[in-house]
């Protein structure tokens, strides 16, 4: 213990003031001794010989004078094979193991090994005398379907290390030595398959960062075609309660075309996490044929768990994402919800008696949110492989009003905005992404010209709809009425998607493009329809066939028949364009 005489001098909620002697760094982890338990906390402010710690546990029974032990380490996570399929709390405590040990409740002060003590078949890829840098691989193990690279810890300060010892190919425990390295200065270090990394520091062991220019396919039509996200990009999903944020994220986590999905359930309902926990092991990943759980890590710090750990949980998640990126994989991080994370910062800021910013959020809110989203990115690793971390965060704005600080700070830094609207969810139009106000800066799967034409129909349709509310259907021209019906058609058969239908819930790119082209031909067509009654009848018919088509397997007999009938119907009303 390096800080003698560190002891508690004040408690206020989850903030504890500590007097100390000697050195102490910001974000250093300390343990408060209360009776027989040790409560973990993180230093967030140092002032003379007093430090303020945010404690990751309930602070009841702490007394002035209780001893505090500092660890000299920043808040870190352990990285190594065995992270996948795990369920952690915000501080990387494995929850199933904790349940096995403590039963129903989260007992405070119990910290278990995050990486299961397991044997792995290790294959060395270096030999004695090889020179390595941090993040270079010394060997590999097979973690499920992935080749997990055992790397030189990123935290090794020196850039030049020589291998002095490497084990033979064989089965080793995750914590037994697999290599020894010596630096140019003569320092010798031993390597196991596990090392730790401070969560609030981005891992930057890559050659360069690239522009996110490849679409990340989610199999959700409105996203892939109209509001695409990119591998290595960022996006946010704000929406009022009940608008379907979490359902949308679950759909994405199931179908996204990435190697690994990390779900950070941050301050939301425990029940929603349970659905993932119980469902994912049953579902198969269409890409690999294995259980979806094999590509998933869940970080779960639900709303009733201690607030400070909630703040840490998103960092824990993004650090793991960056770690797997170092292996050349594409990782998607879904954070639900970043508002709860921001609220955790607000609670802390209040206890520190900082001067409040807007709605009492700390003044640093924007920069903190920005630096979190900036940890996403597509990179070229030193071995030339391209890998990425994509971050998608939901935002739960107070009162469903997007003008609040968290939504606004997030909008500044993300590449795509999928705003959910109450009107759409009330009308049971799912996914309830508002196609008019949402935007994306990324490249989608479809032809841009066609997409922008389809969008213009949507805008025009909404204008006409507004107008019709005033002048009534009678006062609208047939031509306008057709445009309005076209926009309604686009909305109901393409933008909306039934997440419970086995076919419609996940739509492949080829199918999306095929259907979009079919739809586009109708949107573009100059229709010869005499009056509104005929217009209505025509679009009702097209819509019905199109919806049936959405529910039939791609290019099946039923599908082809429906497609033919739609084309025929359209052709029969086609004017001389």
């Amino acid at each position: 213990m390096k800080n003698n005489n560190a002891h508690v001098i004040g408690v206020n909620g989850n903030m504890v003031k500590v007097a100390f002697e000697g050195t102490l760094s910001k974000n250093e982890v300390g343990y408060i001794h209360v009776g027989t338990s040790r409560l973990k906390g993180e230093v967030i402010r140092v002032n003379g010989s007093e430090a303020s710690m945010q404690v990751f546990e309930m602070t009841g029974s702490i007394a002035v004078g209780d001893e505090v032990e500092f660890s000299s380490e920043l808040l870190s996570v352990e990285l190594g094979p065995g992270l996948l399929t795990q369920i952690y709390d915000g501080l990387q405590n494995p929850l199933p193991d904790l349940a096995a040990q403590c039963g129903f409740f989260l007992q405070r002060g119990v910290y278990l090994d995050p990486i299961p003590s397991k044997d792995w078949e290790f294959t060395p890829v270096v030999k004695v005398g090889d020179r390595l840098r941090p993040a270079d691989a010394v060997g590999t193990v097979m973690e499920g379907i992935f080749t997990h690279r055992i790397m030189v810890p990123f935290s090794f300060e020196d850039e030049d290390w020589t291998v002095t010892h490497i084990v033979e190919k064989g089965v080793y425990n995750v914590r037994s030595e697999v290599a020894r390295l010596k630096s140019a200065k003569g320092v010798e270090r031993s390597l196991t398959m596990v090392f730790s990394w401070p969560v609030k520091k981005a891992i930057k062991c890559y050659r360069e960062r690239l522009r996110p220019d490849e679409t990340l396919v989610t199999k959700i039509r409105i996203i892939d075609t109209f509001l695409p996200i990119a591998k290595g990009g960022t996006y946010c999903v704000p929406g009022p309660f009940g608008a379907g944020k979490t359902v949308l994220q679950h759909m994405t986590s199931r179908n996204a075309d990435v190697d690994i999905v990390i779900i950070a359930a941050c301050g939301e309902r425990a029940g929603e996490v349970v659905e993932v926990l119980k469902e994912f092991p049953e579902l198969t990943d269409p890409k690999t044929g294995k259980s979806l759980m094999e590509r998933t890590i869940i970080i779960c710090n639900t709303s009733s768990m201690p607030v400070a750990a909630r703040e840490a949980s998103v960092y824990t998640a993004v650090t793991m994402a960056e770690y797997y990126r170092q292996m050349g994989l594409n990782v998607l991080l879904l954070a639900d919800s970043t508002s709860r994370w921001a609220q955790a910062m607000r609670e802390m800021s209040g206890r520190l008696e900082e001067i409040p910013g807007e709605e009492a959020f700390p003044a640093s809110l924007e920069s903190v949110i920005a630096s979190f989203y900036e940890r996403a990115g597509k990179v070229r690793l030193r071995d030339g492989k391209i890998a990425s971390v994509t971050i998608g965060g939901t935002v739960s704005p107070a009162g469903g009003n997007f003008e609040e600080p968290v939504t606004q700070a997030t909008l500044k830094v993300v590449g795509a905005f999928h705003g959910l609207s109450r009107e759409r969810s009330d009308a049971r139009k799912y996914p309830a992404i508002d196609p008019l106000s949402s935007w994306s800066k990324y490249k989608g799967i479809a032809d841009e010209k066609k997409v922008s034409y389809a969008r213009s129909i949507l805008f025009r349709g909404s204008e006409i709809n507004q107008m019709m509310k005033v002048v009534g259907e009678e006062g609208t021209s047939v031509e306008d009425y057709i445009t309005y019906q076209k926009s309604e058609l686009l909305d109901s058969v393409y933008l909306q998607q039934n997440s419970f239908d086995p076919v419609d819930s996940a739509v492949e790119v080829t199918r999306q493009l095929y259907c979009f082209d079919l739809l586009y031909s109708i949107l573009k067509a100059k229709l010869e329809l005499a009056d509104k009654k005929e217009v209505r009848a025509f679009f009702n018919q097209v819509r019905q066939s199109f919806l049936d088509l959405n529910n039939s397997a791609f290019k099946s007999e039923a599908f082809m028949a429906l497609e033919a009938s739609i084309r025929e119907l359209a052709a029969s009303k086609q004017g001389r364009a």
Partner: protein
Amino acid sequence: MQKVYTKIESIVGNVITVRAQGVRYNDLAMVGKSLANVIKLDGELVSLQVFAGAQGISTTDEVRFLGYPMKVSYSENLLGRVFNGSGKPMDNGPELDENLIEIGGPSVNPAKRIIPRNMIRTGIPMIDVFNTLVESQKLPIFSVSGEPYNQLLARIAMQAEVDLIVLGGMGLKYDDYLYFKDTLKESGAMDRTIMFIHTASDPTVECTMIPDLALAVAERFALDGKKVLVLLTDMTNFCDALKEMAITMEQVPSNRGYPGDLYSSLASRYEKAVDFEGAGSVTILGVTTMPGDDVTHPVPDNTGYITEGQYYLKGGRIEPFGSLSRLKQQVNKDTREDHRALMDGMIKLYAAYKESVEKKSMGFMMSEWDNKLLDYGKLFEARLMDLSVNIPLEDALDEGWEILASCFEPNETGLKSDLIVKFWPRTEE
């Protein structure tokens, strides 16, 4: 360590500060005759919130630290009893101090939770049929002052098929407290009920203790295998009490004066709803009055993000629109085959009825279809929506078919043909 201090340094609102040593955070103390708990430690300065309020406390009053946090007695003897926010009896019964348990305990490990699977029958069609209440659900009733939300809660307490009711009343009018007590006594439900009551005239601090007391007791009964329903009314008063305490403690307010941790405070209470595998369960039904009928007010807004749906109580009826039980899908597939389809179909027709009403009020011509809808809407409101209707789920479903049959032709309802063949009431015979 029962040390006694007699020098109170400051008295602000309901918070007193005293110089003391060896005091632990969250511990209890006796200040004069009232309980108090430690809410802040700063060196030797200990801040305590006095449950009975700081009125009349003098700077030389005794402060005696008890050395343990707030506890509540837990045993079968609680049944049928009424306590206040300090855990003291309100019903002239004996004080209970056996088998004390801590309140505000740790949260349940998410890995130990299970997917909810049992419905709770209430005999109220608007709940059972349209927004089924599910064991381990947390659901608020969004309402406005003046609506009969307490009457609704009392009815649910009497009728719900659960082993035990724990009623937490916050800022209750004394009349309402008596109403609860009398109604439950008359119906015989009192001996499976435990009440923790804070009336509007009681001290604010006690209001903030009610949910924790009620939930701690409920949780223990659930662990012992009981199916517990916790009724909390009115959570807006609880939030206002938190606000008052936060302002007294000079915390920076975040939104309309409420403290920044309002969401966490509410969540840590509502998340106590749980189904213990191999034991009992806790289900929470709360009342949240919306000031000014504004759902974006911080209290209903934060509540909505935490709970699994909500019931809107408006005009003395549970509104079919807006009301939502997020967990109903888990159970309404196993009740009766026509449950889901009938639920959707009837709501769609009711929505059409509302449109017709609007058209009528604007003076448009009523078509034959409109008239059918108007008849339907009236029947629907009288025979299913009315809060006095008290029938089991199956009867309510049959009633639904009757209403449909008396207003429409089968093909006008949009229901699937096989269901119509099976359930459409036959007029001949």
